């Protein structure tokens, strides 16, 4: 028989205001195995923990139930406390009477009654608990960063600087991501390339960093400290060891009609191309969809041009398997597709553009060499209308419910830059709210309004229609309560941003969760913002939620610290709540092996002594270092041989019985 102590936490008034903690303590004493119960204001406080530890020692407790907040909050705290005074940590169970009881119920009697039942279920479980010992597993001292934008680059640089190997896998032919496409950055108006490209070069040059550009992570298996990733290195059709990045081939290539991704499709590029001048790695890549050689078997001009003999039309995708201790997701974002926003006429009018396209039109390396020209007739726009919140903060199916966070600031930046460079251009901004919560952000926005005379109109745009070579913008001014019609030369849409489409696939691959908007979910919204709920998987940048550059960089470094903290350990403690097969009950049927997602179950022939009967049987064997403790096998097993430590059949049924009593 266990000697169980039950501790009921008031959590200040969080629990005690709705649950009669004294009553729960009294009821606890009537439960089998309970030899002690007490209520205390803050069990998690040092004195609360001391009370628990002292009682364990004095009463010789063999089990503890803490009725408090969620086990996801303090289970580890109380287990550690128990361990410090010699009680096996897995003899401690938590009854969640805060999140699952006091916080959601108002009636004291009802909440108290429920708290008693939850306590009773936890006591019933502890009565069947057994001491568990966690195993150890080695940590592979290398990290994988998925995505080579500013987030991925910063994370990789910080990890490498701490002395650990790190691989960046980037699906595009170059790292740099969206930041490489930007012209200037707010609120300082630094040149984006000037601050990004040195980091790209640093990453490429760092001896601890390996960049797999034009590659994708195809499969990930394993667990914290010991992941194995399969990386598909896509065929560039250019030998990367030979290519010097001279670019001669791109000049000679006769196929020049492919849309230039780097310029958001505003101009075209050759079939063999280098994404942009500062690309890292600076290597040519053939787009087989555009290449004449791939389409007809003829041409071959690039091959003839290349002195380095780097062109290799027969190159194949390469699969690389690497082991990692930690994985950082930094998959970034895209601007949403505007097909469903017919009111703005984006698809119909070339002069209705997105803000990202405007970045390219204003960039010296862009399609117009940095001169702002309308895409349709290459003239200077004299009147420009910016429309905010296109697809953000909306309720329609095509809208995103969230705020994209960066649009207010980049629009202020755009309007300011335009007014600076072309003082004769009038700039209007239609906005719902202007949100500027960042260091020097409000000041920046005020400058746009006060110093640069940008016309901010609070209101939305209902329609943009072509009208005699101009774009007639129908909007409303909510402050003056009147309709506004502006004949503009250029309309710039601040389109919402959304997670890159790869995020969902990668989340599934890494068995980490995503929210309804496909942003990856952090382990705790406040206290663990860069960790995912899956151990060993970390989040960096916009894949977790909309962010500007300084925030992204800060989060990227935070993720790196978490990775370094993990890689600094030689071994990590495994979860002891793993499956175990009872030799005498195992039929050897393989059902458990089939449902195990980790391949943790194998079979061996072993001699058993079944009540004096000796025979060789085929038996399931669980590799405890590999098992993650999901329990799928326990249900597949018809004989009940397979059970899950810490969540045994009998424990769960005891909880069921206690609740239904």
């Amino acid at each position, binding site marked *: 028989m266990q000697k169980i102590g039950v501790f009921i936490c008031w959590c200040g008034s969080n629990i005690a205001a709705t649950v009669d903690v004294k009553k729960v303590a009294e009821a606890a004493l009537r439960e089998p195995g309970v030899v002690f119960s007490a209520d205390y204001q803050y069990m998690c406080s040092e004195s609360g923990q001391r009370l628990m530890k002292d009682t364990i020692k004095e009463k010789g407790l063999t089990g503890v139930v803490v009725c408090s907040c969620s086990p996801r909050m303090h289970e580890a705290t109380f287990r550690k406390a128990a361990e410090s005074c010699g009680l096996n940590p897995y003899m401690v169970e938590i009854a969640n009477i805060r999140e699952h009881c006091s916080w959601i119920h108002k009636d004291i009697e009802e909440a108290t009654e429920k708290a008693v039942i939850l306590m009773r279920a936890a006591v019933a479980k502890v009565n069947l608990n057994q001491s568990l010992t966690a195993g150890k597993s080695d940590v592979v001292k290398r990290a994988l960063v998925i995505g080579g934008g500013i987030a991925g680059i910063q994370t990789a640089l910080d990890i490498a600087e701490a002395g650990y190997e790190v691989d960046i896998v980037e699906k595009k032919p170059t790292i740099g991501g969206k930041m490489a496409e930007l012209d200037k950055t707010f609120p300082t108006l630094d040149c984006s390339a000037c601050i990004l490209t040195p980091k790209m070069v640093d990453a490429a040059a760092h001896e601890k960093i390996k960049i797999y550009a034009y590659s994708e992570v195809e499969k990930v298996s394993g667990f914290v400290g010991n992941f194995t990733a399969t990386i598909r290195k896509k065929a560039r059709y250019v030998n990367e060891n030979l290519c010097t990045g001279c670019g001669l081939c791109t000049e000679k290539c006769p196929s020049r009609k492919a849309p230039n991704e780097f310029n958001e499709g505003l101009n075209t590029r050759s079939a063999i191309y280098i994404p942009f001048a500062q690309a890292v790695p600076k290597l040519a890549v053939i787009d087989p969809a555009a290449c004449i050689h791939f389409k007809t078997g003829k041409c071959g001009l690039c091959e003839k041009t290349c002195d380095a003999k780097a062109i290799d039309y027969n190159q194949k995708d390469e699969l690389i398997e690497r082991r990692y201790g930690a994985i950082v997701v930094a998959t970034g974002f895209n601007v949403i597709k505007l097909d469903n926003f017919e009111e703005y006429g984006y698809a119909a009018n070339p002069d209705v553009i997105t803000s990202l396209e405007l970045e390219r039109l204003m960039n010296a390396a862009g399609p117009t060499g940095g001169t702002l020209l309308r895409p349709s007739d290459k003239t200077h726009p004299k009147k420009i209308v910016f429309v905010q919140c296109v697809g953000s903060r909306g309720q329609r199916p095509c809208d995103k419910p969230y705020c994209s966070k960066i649009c207010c600031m980049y629009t202020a930046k755009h309007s300011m830059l335009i007014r600076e460079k072309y003082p004769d251009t009038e700039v209007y901004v239609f906005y719902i709210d202007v949100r500027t919560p960042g260091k020097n952000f409000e000041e920046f926005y005020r400058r746009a309004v006060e110093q640069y005379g940008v016309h901010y109109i609070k209101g939305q745009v209902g329609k943009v229609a072509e009208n005699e070579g101009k774009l007639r913008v129908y909007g409303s001014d909510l402050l003056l309560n009147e309709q506004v019609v502006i004949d503009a030369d250029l309309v710039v849409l601040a389109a919402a941003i959304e997670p890159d489409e790869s995020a969902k696939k990668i989340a599934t691959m890494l068995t980490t969760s995503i929210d309804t908007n496909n942003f990856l979910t952090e382990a705790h919204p406040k206290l663990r913002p860069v960790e995912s709920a899956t151990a060993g998987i970390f989040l960096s940048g916009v894949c977790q939620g909309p962010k500007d550059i300084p925030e992204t960089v800060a989060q990227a470094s935070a993720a790196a610290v978490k990775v370094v903290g993990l890689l600094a350990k030689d071994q990590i403690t495994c979860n002891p709540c793993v499956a175990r097969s009872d030799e*005498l*009950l*195992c*039929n*050897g*049927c*393989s*059902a458990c092996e*089939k*449902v195990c997602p980790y391949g943790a179950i194998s*079979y061996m022939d072993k001699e058993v002594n*079944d009540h004096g009967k000796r*025979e060789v049987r*085929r038996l399931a064997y669980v590799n405890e270092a590999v098992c993650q403790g999901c329990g799928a096998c326990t249900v*597949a097993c*018809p*004989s*009940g041989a397979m059970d899950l430590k810490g969540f045994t*059949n*009998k424990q769960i*049924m005891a909880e069921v019985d206690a609740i239904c009593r």
Partner: protein
Amino acid sequence: MQKVAEIAQKRAIQLLNQGAVNRVLGWKKGEFPYDETPAVFASADELKDFVYDSFSSPNLSKYLIEESRKEGKVLAFLKPCDTYSFNQLIKEHRVNRENVYIIGIECGGMIDVVTLKNRGAVGLTGADDDGENITAHTLYGDVKVRKEEVLLEKCQACKGKKHVIYDELIIVNPQDEKPRDRFAGVEAIEAMTPQERFDFWRAQLSKCIRCNACRNICPACSCLQCVFDNPKSGVASKASPDTFEEQLYHIIRAFHVAGRCTDCGECSRVCPQDIPLHLLNRKFIKDMSAFYGEYKAGEDSETRPPLVDFSKDDVEPCIISDKGGDR
């Protein structure tokens, strides 16, 4: 039928004498002239008792779990439906295929003694089967009935006349495949109102005396120790007159064999209370095929059973309530 038995007996003796097999698993007469019983024959002399007739309904597959683990090779006679059970046991690594020599034996359907008796064959002493008709010999004279009318339920719903695994075949009279509707009984219950279903099963399951015959005969219920016998499982139980135990037992048993049950029909055949247990198992078989694609347990020895497999676009459990009803 008589001829098939003679050929089988001769062949068994031959294989024993050649030393190709060490034992033979077949049937012999039981206490009554119509309760053919599984038996192991170790010599030509013992094989004199070998019988194979229209009462040889017991499925011998389950016995091979033990027999195939013994020294030497065992010859087993398996009817078409029995071969499914055997394949399923191979899939679950329960039998040692190398130690078994299988002779697939033709089957024209087995007779349900209870039905036969109800058709007037009281005081049964034996029967002749010409394929079409059964001539039952009784203490009071012969009774002739159409065979189709006295078949066991499992034979009325015959899965087919094809052996899915064998080393050799004994087929004298090739049998026609007759289209059989295995799921008519399940559909009839599905068509009832929930209250009618409840009343039906309550009446049926209340008859259970928990003799465990259904479990003990079942080739899928071959656990070394059944959860219901294991005090450590937390659900071990014996017959008790006024609790939910028996129903729990039948539901769990049906669930445990779901995806593994080959629908051999032995459970219903041996139930002393005539509970139509096959209607429980067949419901699972029907559902699995409907939701996850046609699946016949034991058709081969490799395919993953539906419950240890999945597809990303499987139906949601709410499909049950979406079908309408009282939710």
